[in-house]
């Protein structure tokens, strides 16, 4: 699998800054880990969402802000925020 497109990380940082109402400079560098997700929703389905049950290679992105860690999951085609205030989001 190819390495992650930096644009995906930029998109995740921007999304998180917006949701938290913080400046992007407050978000730490973050960790990126390549992994296989169990399905096309990257193991992070939205409410009322069904997904293809095919193993999906992608990346887990962890971003840290003010001591809290937030998790995004990505493929080349999609980005999801996991369990943010109890819900998953497609970004």
């Amino acid at each position: 699998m190819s390495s992650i497109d930096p644009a995906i990380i930029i998109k995740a940082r921007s999304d998180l800054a917006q949701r938290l109402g913080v400046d992007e400079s407050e978000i730490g560098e973050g960790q990126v880990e390549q992994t296989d997700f169990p399905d096309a929703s990257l193991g992070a389905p939205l409410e009322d969402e069904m997904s293809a049950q095919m193993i999906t290679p992608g990346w887990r992105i962890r971003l840290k802000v003010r001591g809290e860690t937030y998790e995004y999951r990505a493929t080349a085609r999609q980005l999801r925020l996991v369990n943010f205030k109890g819900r998953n989001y497609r970004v």
Partner: protein
Amino acid sequence: MSRNLWLNLSIALALILIAAFAGRLHKWNWHRPSLQTSPSSRGSGQTETDPGSDESDSSKTEILVRFRSNVSRDAIENITSRLNDEVEDRIEAVDGLDVIEDEDNRSADEVVAQYRALSEVEYAEANSEIKLDHEGAGKHVHANDELFYKQWGLFNHGQDGGKSGADISAMQAWAVTKGSDQVVVAVLDSGVDYTHPDLAGNIWTRPEVIKQYEDEDLTEGAIDDVHGFNVVEDNGDPMDDNGHGTHCAGIIGAEGGNEVGIAGVNWIVKIMPLRFMDSDGAGTTKDAIEAINYVINRKRAGVNVRVISASWGSTINSHALEDVIRKAGQEGILFVAAAGNDHSDNDAKPHYPASYGLNNVISVAALDRNDELTSFSNWGATSVDIAAPGQQIVSTWLNHGFEERQGTSMATPFVAGVAALILSTNTAISIDDLRTRLLNSVDAVPSLKGKVATGGRINAAKAVASQ
């Protein structure tokens, strides 16, 4: 004197040639049952009976080797000669594929290992089809499709480190039926690339006598559902832009025996493409319900759609989804669903729609090429019914390609495909009987004991036997 000498020499030479040719014929007769070397037209695979072993020169090891496309015939001859082997036969239908005979008493595993170690070799595998015959498998049909050698789920002879026999016994089933264009299987998914060269001939087209699809909540009137339905965009174009649906469709019904790509469980069938998941492979429960509603509508309109293949799901328990699947059952439609990939117990944590306890639902777990439950597959001693191949499964993909994928998504269409094979020979079978026949047609697999209700892997040959 000179005249007598030439006469004697000529007779001797003629006798040598006759003896050599007779020996060659003997070998050719022995090889013919093990491989289909001649092209065949679609749906006309070579049916063979157990050739027996009376005339076989079983003392010599044979293997199948495919050399890379840039390796010349001279180079192949040099390699075989260096390894004390001989090119016994060339398989003209596949470039670079040769039958190699060992001349220095090595085992098949040893000879295979020798060739696999060479950079000039794409793959090497034991010629274990002979072994299959000797096991008394009886009639079976070979597929000449280019990637058939990778389709361990249909024919596992130990390739790539797999376990011989850990497959669905497709070749034996094909001796009974290769499917029927009168059987329609709905692939409820991300759509299907209905132009794929290995699928196009098996895509359902709405007959003129069947009216266009009309539904009360459609805002733009009737939909010209030429090949199926796109719920996401409310139109009649279920083209796949994800790949998942195309992959599942190929497992069920890629055209077999056409020398192209792969063989489906059904060589002949009609795939009805439905698109309710988007390019990311996700969709809403509501759209899934609308797609099932479409299938029921088409069934009522006269389309012989008897199976829905559903390689998707979540842990969401929707009563509305359950209701429409129940309704499909009442209309004579089997619903085959993926057990899920969370490596968890569905008895404790249900995965829907597979976990709906309906009499038309079959929940499918995934096996690897060694008959082990895959590391990702869900299981359930009471809520998961059956298992099928689900890892490293090659099938049709976007851009007219072929790719390997894994998941209970891939296991599900194997079972849906076998259901279609049964229906090809028994069109009137009830849903209860169809489901029972499928669940009774398994090979017991130790790794599934206590994990899956039937404890077994689907066996297509058993399913179509004794109709």
